[in-house]
């Protein structure tokens, strides 16, 4: 459906995107995820035709569109700022794209159909400047979809909205995407958005692809430290592999038991090179009675109840923080001595 091959973009001497390749299948919801300045927006705008790539090709529906102007690509795009035309009403905004696609006869039916889809019926004659931030995003999504583009591009469309509204519109986007099954490419720096929306995530950093895969595979099998730390929360330990015991990582007084097969080949076991261990908060258990292969004394340093569960931060003897996701209102208090435990299979070694 969409294929990016060896995309490179220089701004003067600054390399924004380096040799990036990925592809999206029909009906997929893909996300470009990365910190600000990683090149994700540049990539999106290159696909839209708003930025000319330095090198590489963009293929849409089997057609090379690299040199086509934006108006001939049949793309729908939602901008960070909504970018609704302030001198037009809601209806005129939607009609603009429809007319440009030669759908003059269908303006009335499509406008009501797509405003209905984003639950904005009845706002046809409102000025876009009178709408709230959330309403503007909705209209902007309707405008991008009304002429049934081949692909929908979303450039951090939830920026600037409060948390509740963010989640609400996020869910609506997902629902709309399922309903009309439009191939979608979403850009965000928010890993939670990426994990909850997409079935394919491309993690970018410094203009390069770090990893590509399903949310599950990124979360459970990150390929490198950047992905492990950027996608999801985790406790982080360092240590040296033990020559004699391949299933053990040593760090001073702490000894970690790991799955020996999870130790990557790239970190040689012999010369005492550092490896980093990650454990997800939901894999750690606070319990003084259970027996785990990895069990450490710890002191509770912070308890945050976030509603559905509690996030507890503890400190090991050497001061290393450990994050635990526990039931709500745990029977613990800050400063309390306890133990934490986790299984070797739950340790990600990188």
């Amino acid at each position, binding site marked *: 459906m969409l294929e990016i091959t060896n995309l490179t973009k220089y701004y003067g001497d600054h390399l924004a995107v380096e040799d990036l390749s990925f592809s999206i299948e029909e009906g997929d919801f893909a996300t470009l995820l990365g910190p600000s300045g990683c090149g994700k927006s540049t990539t999106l705008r290159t696909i839209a035709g708003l930025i000319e790539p330095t090198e590489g090709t963009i293929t849409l529906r089997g057609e090379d569109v690299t040199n086509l102007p934006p108006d001939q690509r049949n793309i729908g795009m939602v901008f960070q700022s909504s970018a*609704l035309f302030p001198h037009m009403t809601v209806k005129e905004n939607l009609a603009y794209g429809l007319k440009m696609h030669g759908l003059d006869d269908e303006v009335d039916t499509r406008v009501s159909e797509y405003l209905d889809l984003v639950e904005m019926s009845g706002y046809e004659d409102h000025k876009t400047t009178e709408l709230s931030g959330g309403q503007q995003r909705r209209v902007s999504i309707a*405008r991008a979809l009304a*002429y049934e583009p081949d692909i929908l591009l979303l450039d951090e469309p939830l920026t600037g909205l409060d948390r509740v509204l963010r989640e609400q519109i996020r869910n609506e986007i997902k629902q709309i995407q399922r309903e009309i099954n439009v191939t979608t490419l979403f850009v965000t720096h928010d890993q939670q958005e990426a994990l909850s929306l997409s079935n394919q995530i491309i993690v970018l950093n410094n203009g390069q692809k770090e990893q590509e895969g399903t949310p599950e595979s990124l979360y459970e099998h990150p390929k490198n430290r950047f992905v492990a730390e950027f996608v999801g929360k985790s406790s982080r330990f360092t240590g040296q592999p033990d020559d004699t015991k391949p299933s053990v990582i040593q760090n001073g007084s702490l000894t970690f038991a790991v799955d020996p097969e999870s130790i990557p080949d790239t970190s040689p076991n012999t010369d005492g090179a550092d490896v980093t261990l990650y454990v997800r908060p939901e894999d750690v258990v606070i319990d003084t009675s259970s027996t785990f292969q990895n069990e450490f004394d710890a002191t509770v340093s912070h308890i945050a109840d976030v509603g559905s569960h509690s996030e507890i931060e503890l400190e090991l003897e050497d001061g290393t923080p450990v994050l635990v996701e526990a039931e709500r209102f745990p029977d613990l208090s800050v400063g309390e001595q306890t133990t934490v435990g986790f299984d070797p299979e739950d340790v990600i070694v990188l």
Partner: protein
Amino acid sequence: MIFRNLPVPTSVRERVTPRHLVAFGLGWLALFFVLPILVLVWQSLGIGTGEPLSAYQQALSGLYLWTIVRSFYYGIATTIVTLALAYAFSYFVVFWTSMKNLFLILVVLPLWIAYIIRYLGIQLFFSPTGPFVDLFGTDFGFLFSTRGVILGMTIAYLPFAILPIYNSMNAIDRDHIHASRVLGAGSLRTVYSVVFPLSLSGIVAAGLIVFILSSGSFLAPAVLGSSENFMIANMIERSYTELFNIELAAALSVIYTIILLALIAVFNSYVNLGEVFENI
């Protein structure tokens, strides 16, 4: 209150209030602006001369009437040409060059030079011994003619048109333009449907400024025109300093001002000027 943070003696602090400061400003305006205009209007009526309002009769007939018509005709022509040039220039500076500041300095720089010098420069440029005639063998009728006066005013007032247009165009969110392109509009259609309406407030403001300045221009017709190109300001000056007809000069001034205000009022009924000047 006004002197809260200043070391002002209490006696002064108690006697001078904001009301006094306002009174000073308004008094200045009344004394040197409102009062002279009232005197001028009184003079124009010619009361006590035995022939009251005769100056208005004269001002609205023959040569004088034609001069009034010519003034507004030149004003409209200059406004149209200036707006076209200013729009093209602003578009170039906003969307095509990375050296915005350099071009903006070049726009403002001529304002440092007196009008008379600039008009004389244009006169020399088109003169029979000037570089233009050297190059083309003719001045294409630019000297001492309608087109010369309009050309001169266009050049003189261009900065006043560029600045508001540049401002409103530069304030357009680039994503509005990008959105238009992605929605399927070509670049010309985007200029017509997005850039133009979103910079309209600058165009209206620029048009108004140029129209007022050029309709009342004195130096351009005096330096670049012949007596056939005289505008209202030249007629007022001549009535006053050569014919010593103060009533006529005053009547011409009053008529000109009323027509100008009426034109602006008519314009305001189509375009809400209050909104326009708020948006600049």
